């Protein structure tokens, strides 16, 4: 394949297409046009990703890699790569948006053109993060993903949305700025003064420097994931943001942090990673148990899901730092699966909230009697959330726990407590919300699942089952990335 023959590459397409369609959406002020446009655009994005799966071969190298000179004076180029992990996360990003749009297809947001425009812009940022191979480009997209979300979450959502989103923004902004300092620091120590990932990997940092810069990077990623105890923004933000925004925030944006650990943190600071692994895994595992316990006593559905997300992310973090093949493969699976599952949960929550006007667990109950369809979906998704075998999350969690176990038996034992606790809080929620007799509020459940939402839920459930039974699809996709990662960090323990 001659590079000149390539008209446009996949990563570029995935970045520019949502950007353009997002910008166009701003001008579609009439009625539902913006909404339709966004749905169509998001489907096209899915199609692009789908097509890209036919071009994974090495022969198509030039379809998947880009590098333009951007700022030669400081050695930064607009470099993108579309590898297995990136492909998977792009797929997740691509899928998340139509799901979010379909769920809320019957909700009419004020100023739909702004809403959908901003949504599509955030998609651009996310795609960029997952493809970037240059630290500066990465940082650019990292921040760009946040700005539209800031507006989205502040403009549409609950009563306290403004201050909550603001807290979220400032919090992540602080962390990103630290990341920026870290990037600069590493950059100045690269042999060829370049921001390329390959140069970062060769950076000549002394162990002492590594230890210091490690935390600058880690802070940013930990806040974004969010890892205990940096999670304070998260339950509030999820609670207050509008449903599609929450879906994107939790389904995809959280993966930015996890992704960055794998691509940018551990390979660049192998030594410091080795030193700090016990601390990080300790934090992650503590956070898992902690968040599980807190999830148990939440009365707000969204907060409950938020805390459960902290548990899952904690596990991913621990598994990454365990740095063995099993753990990292598990993380790969789980990044995708957690995205799908949590989006599924949000869809259910959104349907409940939009129909009954409340998310308070204590006020709901008996929905199963009035809306059996929703209950079936919910139970499947909830079971996926607690990683029951033959749902997608099981394989991921199995591998991750296995990875953590190979790191430390007792650590894994403590982490595994969360599978008990997750059953407790998830089933508790299912029971209180869906079982029992209907009350005055929930008796009117007829017709709460609109067709578009049902389609979204069906897709989620199909993915849950498909990937639960045949996880090889994703395992094969990400195998190369994992092998490269492992070979780079192996022996650094």
């Amino acid at each position: 394949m001659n590079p000149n023959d390539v008209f446009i590459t996949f990563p570029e397409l995935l970045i520019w297409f949502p950007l353009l369609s997002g910008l166009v959406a701003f001008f579609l002020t009439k009625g539902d046009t913006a909404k339709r446009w966004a749905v169509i655009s998001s489907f096209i994005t899915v199609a692009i990703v789908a097509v890209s799966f036919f071009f994974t071969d090495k022969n198509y190298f030039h379809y998947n890699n880009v590098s333009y000179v951007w700022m030669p004076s400081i050695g930064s180029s607009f470099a993108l790569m579309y590898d297995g992990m990136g492909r998977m996360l792009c797929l997740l990003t691509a899928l998340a948006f139509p799901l979010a749009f379909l769920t809320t297809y019957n909700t009419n947001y004020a100023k739909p053109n702004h809403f959908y425009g901003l949504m599509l812009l955030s998609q651009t940022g996310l795609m960029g993060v997952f493809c970037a191979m240059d630290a500066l480009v990465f940082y650019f997209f990292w921040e760009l993903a946040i700005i539209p979300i800031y507006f989205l979450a502040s403009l549409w959502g609950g009563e306290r949305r403004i201050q909550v989103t603001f807290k979220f923004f400032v919090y992540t902004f602080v962390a990103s700025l630290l990341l920026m300092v870290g990037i600069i620091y590493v950059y100045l120590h690269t042999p060829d003064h370049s921001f390329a990932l390959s140069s970062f990997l060769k950076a000549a940092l002394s162990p002492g420097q590594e230890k210091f810069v490690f935390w600058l990077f880690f802070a940013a990623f930990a806040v974004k994931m969010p890892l205990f105890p940096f999670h304070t923004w998260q339950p509030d933000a999820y609670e207050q943001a509008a449903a599609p925004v929450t879906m994107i925030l939790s389904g995809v944006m959280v993966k930015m942090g996890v992704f960055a650990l794998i691509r940018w943190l551990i390979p660049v600071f192998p030594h410091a990673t080795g030193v700090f692994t016990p601390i990080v895994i300790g934090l992650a595992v503590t956070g898992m148990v902690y968040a599980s316990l807190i999830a148990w006593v939440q009365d707000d559905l969204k907060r409950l899901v938020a805390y459960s997300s902290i548990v899952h992310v904690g596990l991913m973090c621990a598994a990454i730092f365990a740095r063995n093949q099993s753990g990292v493969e598990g993380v790969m699976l789980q990044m995708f699966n957690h995205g799908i599952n949590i989006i599924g949960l949000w869809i259910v929550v959104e349907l409940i909230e939009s129909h009954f006007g409340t998310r308070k667990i204590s006020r709901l109950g008996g929905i199963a009697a009035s809306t059996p369809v929703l209950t079936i979906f919910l139970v499947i998704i909830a079971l996926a959330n607690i990683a029951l075998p033959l749902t997608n999350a099981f394989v991921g969690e199995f591998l991750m726990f296995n990875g953590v176990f190979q790191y430390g038996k007792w650590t894994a034992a403590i982490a595994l407590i969360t599978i008990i606790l997750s059953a407790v809080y998830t089933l508790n929620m299912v029971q209180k919300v869906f079982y029992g007799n209907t009350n005055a509020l929930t008796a009117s459940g007829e017709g709460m699942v609109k067709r578009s939402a049902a389609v979204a839920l069906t897709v989620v459930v199909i993915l849950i089952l498909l990937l639960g039974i045949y996880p090889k699809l994703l395992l094969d996709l990400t195998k190369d990335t994992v092998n490269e990662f492992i070979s780079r960090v192996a022996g650094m323990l």
Partner: protein
Amino acid sequence: MSSIILSALWGVVMMFSGIFLKKKSLAKYIALLGIAALLTVNFLEYYNIWYIYADIRQMLKFTSFGQVFNAIVFACTLLFFLLNASEFEAMGPDVYEYYALIFFVLCGVGIAVSFNTLLMLFIGIEIITIPLYILAGSEKRNLRSNEASIKYFLMGVFSTGIMLMGIAFLYGATGTFYIDSMNLGVESLRPMILIGIVLLMVAMSFKVSAAPFHFWVPDVYDGAPTAVTSFMATIVKVASFVAFLHLFDTAFGKMHADWQLLIALITAATLFIGNITAVFQQSVKRMLAYSSVAHAGFMMFALWSLNTFAREGLILYAAAYSLATIGSFAVLAKMKDYSLEGFNGLGKTQPLLALTNTIFLLSLTGIPLTAGFFAKYFMLMGAVKSGTHLWLVIFAVLMAAVSAYYYFRVIQAMYFKEGNAQVTPVSPVFRITLCVTAALIILLGMFPGLLLKGLYY
């Protein structure tokens, strides 16, 4: 050289046209013509196509750095004129004189960025400040404007005294005013040199509004007419910074290690006071004044690190900061209520103003894709490169996060709060210029190289 001469001449032209032309509204066209001419002349000189040569005994030295900076200054002034023409007309009867004074200031800026002797520095700085004393007080009936003028004046002359003392000590120790040939190596004269450096540092810090010599800034910026504040906070300030950097780089660069810590302290204080105090401000104008102090803190990094990144960064910062500040002051000037509540709901009543203002504020915060990001980025890069004292960099980014707090309060007010923000009528030219400014910010945010390339022509 030619731009210095032309700006002085154009000041005179403005003055005379004030005598012969009675219509206020003509003034802006003449001024725009002048700025256009200045830009052209600067470009011609930059590309060595046409320039004036005079034997000035090396008192000024023209470098590509200075010329690029001049171009930025002139471009910003052009935008400034386009955006603030109506404000000038509202300020008082002496519109032509105001423009003339601004041209004189530009002349001073030209001198201050290319001086090679302390004498030219002194004269340049004075040419910049004396017209500003007047401009700050140009709303003669407005007590706030009066107060701003008086405060600026009293503290300004005081700082002049300090600066002169510094120059005197340096002269005593080195026997010359030429900054490129100062012999700082005489060990026995070290105390004198150090005293001179500290005094000059304090005086320049005052000019660039670094803490704790910034106290005039909030009051003066608040009291002066908004258009003047906008000019002072941007062009004048960055010019002072360039002078500051030029002086300390060329003259005292060899002794960098000796005074670096002091700069670090001043930087830290500036960042802290500027950002923290801005948080609580209710008036957007005053908030921008404090934010201007805060940005001074960031620009101080150039002095602290004193390397290529610092110089490139200062140029970028000058452009980014000036464009964004001019823009947000221009929007502010159109507001009927300068308080934060006054911005409530601007996103609905004036979407364009709100959108562009958002871009300006994002740039001031340093969000990627805006010029402000690369400005900060280069500054921090320079600072990190200089090695030691990484704590200051960390501190700076934490303070930058605080800055997000107060800038975003304005964004919140514009978009998220209910309200009915009132603005005075805005002309199409104003709107277009705002858009151009915002577009420039984004362009520089994506391709900062466009500007930096100019340095190495």
